[in-house]
């Protein structure tokens, strides 16, 4: 930990700053693309789970349970090695996007399902009696009401997704963590452990802290509003 106070180590970090910026960019791009995939899968399977059709519900259940109960590292390794061993040309970032998207999608699906489940049943019946079909009920009536319940946990899942990009390291990706590790262990760049890890941690913190803070604030506000409503109803 001596290198923490050595100007040379920090100097080295500055010289190789491009490495960290590339890694940071890769991490963010992977997270953004995976988030898109996760949202699509999340809404798809969340709606399936809330649809009341036994087959669709079972499918959504199997997806969520299989993905949530196994580590994302395993899923990513699985995808990567299957592709690599069948000698398909693999892009590590693309592999990461797919497996992270599928993993986060399972959590998003649970969030969407819980959000839809929190809407009173009368709303569905009222919509049906007014002649709304399934999709227009969801799109025009249910989702607009549940979105404020859905969003805070979704932001939390986004934070987890950004942190989980670090498992690209296992398959040798080019994200922030992997590049930091190869920087501190590299032959020509090695040595500056403390400054490099601090920089890496700070970069992650700068992205994750505002998001998780936002989610927490949001939840507290929602809870307070809810309890005020209950009080009003009681009075």
């Amino acid at each position, binding site marked *: 930990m001596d290198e923490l106070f050595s100007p040379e180590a920090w100097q080295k970090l500055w010289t190789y700053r491009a490495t960290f910026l590339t890694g940071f960019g890769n991490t963010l791009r992977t997270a953004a693309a995976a988030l898109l995939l996760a949202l699509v899968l999340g809404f798809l399977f969340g709606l399936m789970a809330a649809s009341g059709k036994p087959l669709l519900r079972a499918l959504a259940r199997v997806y969520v349970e299989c993905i*949530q109960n196994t580590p994302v*590292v395993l899923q990513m*390794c699985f995808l990567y090695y299957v592709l690599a061993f069948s000698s398909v040309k693999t892009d590590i970032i693309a592999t990461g996007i797919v497996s992270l998207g599928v993993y986060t999608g399972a959590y998003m699906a649970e969030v969407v399902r819980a959000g839809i489940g929190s809407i009173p049943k009368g709303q569905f019946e009222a919509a049906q009696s007014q002649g709304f079909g399934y999709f227009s009920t969801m799109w025009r009536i249910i989702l607009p009401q549940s979105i404020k319940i859905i969003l805070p946990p979704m932001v939390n899942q986004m934070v987890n997704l950004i942190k989980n990009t670090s*498992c690209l390291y296992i398959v040798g990706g080019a994200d922030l*963590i992997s590049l930091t590790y190869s920087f501190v262990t590299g032959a020509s760049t090695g040595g500056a452990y403390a400054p490099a890890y601090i920089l890496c941690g700070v970069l992650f913190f700068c992205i994750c802290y505002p998001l*998780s803070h936002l989610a927490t604030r949001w939840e507290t506000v929602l809870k307070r509003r809810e309890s005020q409503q209950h009080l009003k109803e009681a009075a």
Partner: protein
Amino acid sequence: MDWKASFSILGFPGVLSYIGKGVAFTLILSVLAVVISIFLGSVLALCRNYCHGRSRIFRWISTVYIEVFRNTPLLLWIFICLVACPCPKFFARKMWGLTSVEMKILFRAVVALVLFESSIIAEIIRGGLNAIPKGQFEAAHTQGFSTVQTMLYIILPQAYRAVVPTLLSQIISTIKDSSYLANLACIELMSRVRKILATSNMFNGVGRQMVSDVFVLFGLAFVIYFVINFTLSCAVRRIQKRRPKKQEAAA
């Protein structure tokens, strides 16, 4: 693709017991980490919630700790601990069929997991603490309980009971998170499966690596993780289902 040859890897002498030990270490790591984290997390949560006035420095410390560890990836702390964490002499020796090097890694891995999980568990426990009505404190004080006694006998037991399901699902997360050690420490399940896969041509009797090896080995790991975690998550759901009835009965 040669499924028979790939499945013969599992019959190779020593392979299954090697993986079995990996499962045991995954469980030991996770349970140890969660138990220690519950202690540490409780202290952090109490400090962050109730240290006002002159002791507010503790609130600041625990707030910074929680936010820093919650918002940075676990893998970073694993890297840092494996390099920088001091390991007491007591653990740096042969134990439980592990070499002293592996024992050191095990100790440091637990430290890294505790650092990360304790911040998350602290937030979970804080959620439980926030749900306790203020009247409980006032009632305890009028009955002559000191602050420490109020916390130990009245507030914490209620908070723990409220967060039991969330804490159980945190064990699931910890078991999954321990797979981040895959590249660094060859003691837990994921790393052992990967190690066997890396040399699968020596075990499957064909002499080269095949796609079916990936399916068989990772499939086995998948099944093991799934069985452990699914059992736990079923337990969580049962507890959550029983919950409301009990509260109604109490009311």
